[in-house]
């Protein structure tokens, strides 16, 4: 198990800065998810670690060994690709055993290790599957084979580039659990790139959020989800409500209401909160201490299966609130606990 360290890594494509001085530690034996929108630099970072891209500046270390100048095969990484990249002209057995054959492992040993790893990824009927071509397998099975191909060479670091994004939702959720189980079982240092926040939170020991070639926030899934440090982080992590406001003289003016504010932000601010944190009260209900009460009109409620989603128009915009019960349209008071109303200054976004 190795620790991967990235120090002040920069990469530029023409005039586009894909990585702008990224520094990060990937804990040994842990699964780290790099999360971010398209074009944020997450895949560039992964491919730099793999050795497919030469960085312009900075260092990449596996424990104490600097690997920045080494070709991909000498870094001891194995990559799982978004499109699986299984060679269509080879059988499953040949695909999985290819890396071992390149290492000149004896044929008997190749057979033993390929079968073992295919059992590990629970491919199903081994005798039947190993002689088939990739096109004869389902997407989920193909991704299991791709994972087996990467694991069979016993890499120091497992790199995964959106490995589940080509699969349908049901298969993706099942494979997510199995990926987690496999990574823990093998105990390998794994880096997982995704744009799906739910996937990152469910899978990872550590989540790294990236935007515009920089790291926005890194922490445990709980920290990232519950305490986003910027408006971008909050918005990207699915915090669904966003209101513009202003802080002046110890007061936060938001949604047509002025409330006491003791935080650091000043001037124009963004207030971001979850739909699930809003409680809806009657407009005539007395105000409660430690809450922020807004004034609005419930316009519409949609049934989403597990709960209803209510659309409430405020003076400063529209917010969404989730609750288990259906409510009639009309005046309503959305109420939020003060600690669940993070305020972000403009410079933080």
């Amino acid at each position: 198990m190795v620790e991967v360290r990235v120090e002040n890594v920069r990469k530029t494509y023409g005039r586009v800065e894909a990585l702008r001085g990224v520094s990060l530690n990937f804990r040994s034996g842990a699964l780290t998810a790099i999360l971010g929108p398209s074009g944020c630099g997450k895949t560039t970072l992964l491919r730099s670690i793999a050795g497919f891209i030469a960085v312009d500046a900075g260092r990449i270390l596996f424990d104490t060994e600097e690997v920045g100048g080494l070709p991909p095969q000498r870094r001891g990484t194995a990559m799982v690709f978004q499109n699986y990249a299984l060679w269509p002209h080879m059988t499953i057995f040949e695909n999985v055993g290819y890396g071992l054959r390149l290492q000149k492992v004896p044929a008997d040993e190749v057979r033993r290790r390929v079968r073992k790893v295919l059992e590990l990824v629970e491919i199903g009927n081994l005798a039947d599957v190993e002689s088939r071509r990739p096109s004869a397998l389902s997407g989920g099975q193909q991704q299991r084979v791709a994972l087996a191909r990467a694991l069979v060479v016993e890499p120091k670091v497992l790199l995964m580039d959106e490995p589940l994004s080509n699969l349908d939702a049901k298969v993706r959720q099942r494979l997510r659990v199995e990926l987690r189980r496999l990574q823990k079982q093998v105990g390998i240092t794994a880096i997982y790139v995704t744009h799906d926040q739910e996937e990152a939170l469910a899978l990872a020991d550590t989540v790294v959020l990236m935007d515009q070639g920089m790291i926005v926030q890194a922490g445990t899934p709980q920290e990232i989800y519950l305490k986003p440090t910027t408006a971008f982080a909050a918005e990207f992590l699915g915090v669904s409500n966003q209101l513009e406001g202003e802080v002046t003289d110890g007061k936060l003016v938001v949604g047509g209401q002025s409330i006491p504010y003791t935080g650091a932000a000043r001037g124009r601010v963004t207030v971001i909160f979850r739909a699930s944190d809003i409680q809806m009260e009657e407009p005539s209900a007395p105000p409660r201490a430690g809450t922020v009460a807004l004034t609005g009109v419930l316009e519409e409620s949609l049934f989403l299966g597990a709960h209803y989603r209510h659309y409430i128009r405020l003076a400063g915009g529209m917010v969404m609130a989730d609750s288990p019960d259906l409510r009639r349209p009309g005046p309503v008071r959305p109420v939020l606990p003060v600690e669940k109303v993070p305020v972000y200054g403009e410079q933080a976004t």
Partner: protein
Amino acid sequence: MRPSLRIASLIIALPPLAIVVWLFFIPFLSSAHLSFLREDQWTLRNYSLVWRLYRYDILYTLWIAFVSLAAVLLIAVLLCGYLRVHTNKPVEFLFKIPLFIPFVVVGHAMRVLLAPKGTLNSVLSQVGLINLNDPPSIAFGWMGIAVSLIWKNLALAVLLVLGAYRSVDETYLEAARNFGASAFRQIRDILLPMSAASLAVAGAFMFTSMLASFSVPLMIGSGEPPQMVMIDVYYRINYQGDYGTANALGVVSYLLAMGVAGYYLRTITQKET
């Protein structure tokens, strides 16, 4: 399909179809017909002449076409593999230059280069490798024709094979490189098998073109038997006015090319279905 669409499709398909019928199918039928006639009598004498006089020329033509094709494909497979793995635009351009050079010019250039007292031998004699009083000659024989055809066709091969290689997604190569596959292993294990159908099609194109070579063997051949088949057709018509035997030679050439064309058609229809 709606009737209006069907009519529109037919109108679109009509011009190329008419060209094929007019320039290829009718001349072929006419040629096949004339190959069985001699002094207005139905006969197999033209074919017996072909067998008696030209069977070695046919073998000679096939030999040159196969050797040249094998050499072109071998060079193109390795060269394009290298260019696919390590992009090198200037080298790629240099190899594509012969695309823009007519066959006649290729023939002349190779005469100048490969003749007994040509440029190549002059250079070799300067460095003491050969004696110009008794110079070896690559020109005026099958090797000269093959070298010319290889150089000329390599450009087309590079165009087609590189195109096929470039349609192989980069991740397939990265997956192999990740495990330590060298450039040669990436070509042999990944690029070549994944482009096999395109390679076969390129091979079919070049083989039929080589079978029909005329200006290159005329300019760089020995002028003595054995000759390539198209030269025989030319002499049969122009010097002996013997259209019957010329047509029989044409039909034989067609049959040689037809096997390859059949393979080509099967490959493209399999791809499209």
